[in-house]
Every structure is written in structure tokens, then in C-alpha cells.
């Protein structure tokens, strides 16, 4: 089953890439590089989505995440650290604590995952098993459907969220000197 082999190989390749990018992202001292590595992780994630059969999501991931959010983050970096793009190192203690915590989280959770039995759908025996074929259309319909399977409500809620984030962002970031300060 060559498909499977490709699938698996891709999985491990992208996984390795994503993990390396992620590690690089959290350990680099240059914040802009971190943004770049983040982009790598997110890109790899898009690939994961494709592997998982969520092509639409992969597109969204590339467009919104890589194209939007990371750019925004880069702007943020520019706006906030114009004169020191190189970050100082965190203290050893903090690194140690973080290492212990994240490692134990990883250890415990992956232990649980490996030991857990999932109610894996029987229809899913291979990558090409039957599933909703046109996910893009299905998602589009679902987002505006008011019925049983519809997501119009969270969709509207998220629009309110984005709106208020927008308004808030403007209010906060607007360049005015606060009154009465020092």
C-alpha cells in the first residue's frame, strides 16, 4: 500500500519538521526568527490538515495563520522592540521549571494517549476511506445553517468577538498620551 507508506512518511517528515521548528521557535533569541519558525510550524500544520483530509482547513491555515496572524505578530515585534530585536536569555531556573513542567505534561499526556482506547470509527480503515467528500462546501453550508447541524450562532458570536477585538485594539493602541499621567 504505497499510499499508506507515503502518508506515513509524510507524517513523520512534517512532524519532525514541525517539532524542530517549534523547538527552534522557543529557543531562538531572535524574535523575528521565532516568527519565521512559527510560520514553519503552522505551515507544517497545514500539511497535517491535508493529511487528515481537511484541505479547506489547510487553506485557511495558510491564509489566516501564516498570512495574517504571523504577519501581525511580526508587526507587533516591530512596534514593540524596535531597538532590541535580540531577546535576553531567560534565567536558568525559569528554563528548568518550564522544562520540567512541559516535559511532564508531555510525558503524562502522551502516556495517557498511548494507553487510551479510542472509539475509532470503523469506517476509517485507510486514508481513502469514505468520508464527507466536499468538506469545503459542507463547512460553508454548516457555518450558515440555522438547523441541527448548523453553526450560524457561533459564527455570529465570533463575528462579535472579532469586532470587539478590533474596536478594543484601536482604542488601546491609538497613539495618545494618557491624561494626568506623570
Amino acid at each position, binding site marked *: 500500500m504505497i499510499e*499508506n*507508506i507515503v502518508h*506515513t512518511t509524510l*507524517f*513523520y517528515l512534517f512532524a519532525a519538521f*514541525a*517539532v524542530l521548528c517549534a523547538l527552534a521557535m*522557543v529557543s531562538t533569541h531572535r*524574535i523575528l526568527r*521565532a516568527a519565521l519558525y*512559527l510560520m514553519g*510550524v*503552522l505551515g507544517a*500544520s497545514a500539511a*497535517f*490538515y491535508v493529511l*487528515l*483530509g*481537511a484541505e*479547506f482547513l489547510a487553506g*485557511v491555515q495558510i491564509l*489566516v*495563520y501564516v498570512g495574517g*496572524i504571523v504577519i501581525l*505578530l511580526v508587526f*507587533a*515585534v516591530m*512596534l*514593540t522592540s524596535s531597538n532590541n530585536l535580540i*531577546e535576553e536569555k531567560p534565567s536558568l531556573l525559569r*528554563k528548568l*521549571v518550564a*522544562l520540567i*513542567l*512541559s516535559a511532564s*505534561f*508531555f510525558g503524562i*499526556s*502522551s502516556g495517557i*494517549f*498511548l494507553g487510551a482506547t*479510542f472509539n*475509532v*470509527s470503523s469506517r476509517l480503515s*485507510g486514508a481513502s*476511506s469514505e*468520508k*464527507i467528500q466536499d*468538506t469545503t462546501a459542507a*463547512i460553508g453550508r*454548516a457555518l450558515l445553517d440555522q438547523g441541527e447541524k448548523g453553526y450560524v450562532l*457561533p459564527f455570529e458570536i*465570533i463575528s462579535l468577538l*472579532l469586532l470587539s*477585538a*478590533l474596536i478594543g*485594539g484601536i*482604542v*488601546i*493602541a491609538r497613539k495618545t498620551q494618557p491624561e494626568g499621567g506623570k
Partner: protein
Amino acid sequence: MGENLVSFLEKTPDVSHWLVLSSLLFSIGLYGLLTRRNAVGILMSVELLLNSGALNFILFNRFISPGNIDGQVMSIFVIAIAAAEVVVGMAIFVALFQQRKTVDVTQMNMMKG
């Protein structure tokens, strides 16, 4: 050796493999969140966390209930929420930067005790 590899590769990654991957990404994100000194760096780590959450939804959608698209929809919302968080976070960091001339979180301890 080669046989082993092939038989290994022939078995497509199972739900737990995916989960371990997402858990690894999540843990790395946590590490970043707990160590980065630049607030924006922390925000990036948060993206990593949210991303692995979204990944979870998609992989579960794929493996557990391929008959619907709930997981994928959730991932879309997660991406939107991540965007909103970044917007707000960025605004706050920028405003803070105007006041304190830095966004090093280790120096953000004027209030404590």
C-alpha cells in the same frame, strides 16, 4: 531492516501518534510560554498551543467521527479566536511599550506581593 521500515511505514499513523505529536507541540508551546521574555514571543507560543488544539479537533474529526465536520468547524473558530487574541494582545503590548519602553515580561512586576 528495509522490510521493517516498510511494514512500519505501511501502518498509517494512528490516532495516538497524532495525539502524541500534538501533545509534543503543545508541550513545546508551553515551554515557550513559560520561558520567553518577550511578550510577543509568548504570544507566538500561545499560537502554538492553540494550533495543537485545533490539530486535535481535526484529527479527532478524522478518526472518531468522520461522518461530520464539527471538528473542522471548531478549528476554523479556533483560528479566528487566535486572530482576535493576537489583535488584542498586540494592542496591549504596543500600549504598554509606549509606557514602559519594553515588553520584557520579567520586568512587568511593578505590581506584586
